């Protein structure tokens, strides 16, 4: 229990290819801030973004960035998490990630955390190896639903109660800026024609070639190109002078400033696209374990979006042409947007809050 009298929830997010895991934890924490005191232990190098949302946080370099062996990294994890556990004494630990680390499970057990939650994606590529960690280590397993998924209790009994929630968004709908407000906030012209390119930090997949090609395509069609610089990027892509760089988080807040969006098809990006309804060209990252191509195609069934690897100049030209055709037909009213349930963060937060009240 914190000094405010509210129970403490410790969020533990891994460092993925982008900020997806952090965003998911922030989405839960944002919904729970009135009911609990969220604190973060982050493996993602974006602690300032957690502070910006009003939460305290510590950071440990991720296993993906560190050169320490698996054993030594987990040893550090256990000790450092132990430090934080002793200080904040959480009632619940919420882990968002693919693989619950041994160091985390050990520290949690050594400290005696009353409740454990594992939040994880559902949509993995075929052939991805099952993680050898039992869900029975957790009181609650939250599986992040994809487009079209509704809330579903897959297994009732604890430990290991398993629920699927609808897609999760960091912000509520009313927290997204309207088009003109978003443009004013970003210093963009109200009457301009803008394409936002957000192809990820480029740490796992070099996006500079695809990015440059797409910049040329959009410029040739009269767009001003805006390029996101994610906080966890280790090396920025050099940009032409007439491309506008921005570094904002959460991006969803500003999405409606743009006429079109280009992004990878990570979970959070797809959810943000569904929420903002900005016509999108998806360039799925095929080097990650989740099935971004399938996810992107599902989103494209609900709103003006196209999917392309954009590896070649021909693919890029074709993709942009198709996107602009879909934009034109959507603005003509020929393809109504399908309503999508995006209440996943609220449902997950309710499940976590219920754990706080559940008898031991």
């Amino acid at each position: 229990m914190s000094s405010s009298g509210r129970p403490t929830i410790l969020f533990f997010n891994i460092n993925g290819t982008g900020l997806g895991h952090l965003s998911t934890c922030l989405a839960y924490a944002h919904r729970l801030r009135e009911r609990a005191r969220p604190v973060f232990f982050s493996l993602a190098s974006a602690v300032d973004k957690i502070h910006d949302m009003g939460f305290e946080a510590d950071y440990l370099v991720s296993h993906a960035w560190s050169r320490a062996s698996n054993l030594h990294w987990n040893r550090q994890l256990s000790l450092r998490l132990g430090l934080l556990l002793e200080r904040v004494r959480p009632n619940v630990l919420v882990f968002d990630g693919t693989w619950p680390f041994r160091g985390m499970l050990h520290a949690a057990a050594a400290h005696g955390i009353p409740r454990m939650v594992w939040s994880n994606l559902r949509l993995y590529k075929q052939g991805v190896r099952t993680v050898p960690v039992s869900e029975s280590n957790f009181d609650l397993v939250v599986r992040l639903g994809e487009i079209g998924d509704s809330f579903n209790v897959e297994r009732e009994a604890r430990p290991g109660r398993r629920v699927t929630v609808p897609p999760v968004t960091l912000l509520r709908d009313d927290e997204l800026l309207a088009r003109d407000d978003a443009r004013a906030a970003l210093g963009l012209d109200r009457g301009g024609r803008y394409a936002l390119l957000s192809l990820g930090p480029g740490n796992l997949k070099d996006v500079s070639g695809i990015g440059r090609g797409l910049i040329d395509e959009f410029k040739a069609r009269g767009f001003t190109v805006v390029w996101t610089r994610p906080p966890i990027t280790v090396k920025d892509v050099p940009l032409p002078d007439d491309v506008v760089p921005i570094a904002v988080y959460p991006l969803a807040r500003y999405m409606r400033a743009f006429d079109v969006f280009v992004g990878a098809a990570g979970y959070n990006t797809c959810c943000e696209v569904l929420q903002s309804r900005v016509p999108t060209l998806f360039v799925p990252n095929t080097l990650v374990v989740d099935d971004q191509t399938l996810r992107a195609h599902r989103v494209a069934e609900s709103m003006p979006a196209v999917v392309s690897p954009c590896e070649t100049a021909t693919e890029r030209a074709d993709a942009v042409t198709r996107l602009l055709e879909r934009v034109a037909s959507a603005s003509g009213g020929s393809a109504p947007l399908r309503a999508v349930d995006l209440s996943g963060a609220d449902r997950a937060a309710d499940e976590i809050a219920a754990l706080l009240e559940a008898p031991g």
Partner: protein
Amino acid sequence: MLKQQLAALQREIEELANEPDDALEHYTLPRPPPPKGLYWRLRWLAARTLRLLERLRLKPYHPWPPALRHAPGRIGAKPLLIWALGADRETLRKACTAFAKHPIADYAPVLVTDVADFAFYSRLGWLIEFVPEISGVGESYARRKTRFLARLYRGAAVLPLAAGLDIETHQDEIRSWVLRRA
């Protein structure tokens, strides 16, 4: 003057490192048991073999390498602590940029900081040891973590952030100080 500053900081950190924290031993991770399944068992066996080679000194032992995977520097690089607690963001950026322009071969910088400026750090490519204050019960979190880091990096070369601001003037002095710690 600079030499005195360097020596004083080194002493301060050694003193911190000498303060024990027995309660943390509770969190020491034991060796993993063999997992189920042939694939994971083979991986476990490979990890055990590597640990054995390290113990026999047939493979270099680097439990907490300071050089990151995506940054220059080899796994055997020694840590060079940049001690930056209590600095303001602008000074920190200026000093780190200066340090980055004057790398010391075989050393990888480790920034010990309480400033959350992670977009800047990501582009530096250094290991970041973040020391925030977090409210809660017991001893100050920042102080306890500082002591933890002092023990982890015991004996490593340490430079105050201010050395980065003077590095153009005192480059040789700083370099020889660091190399003498080897």
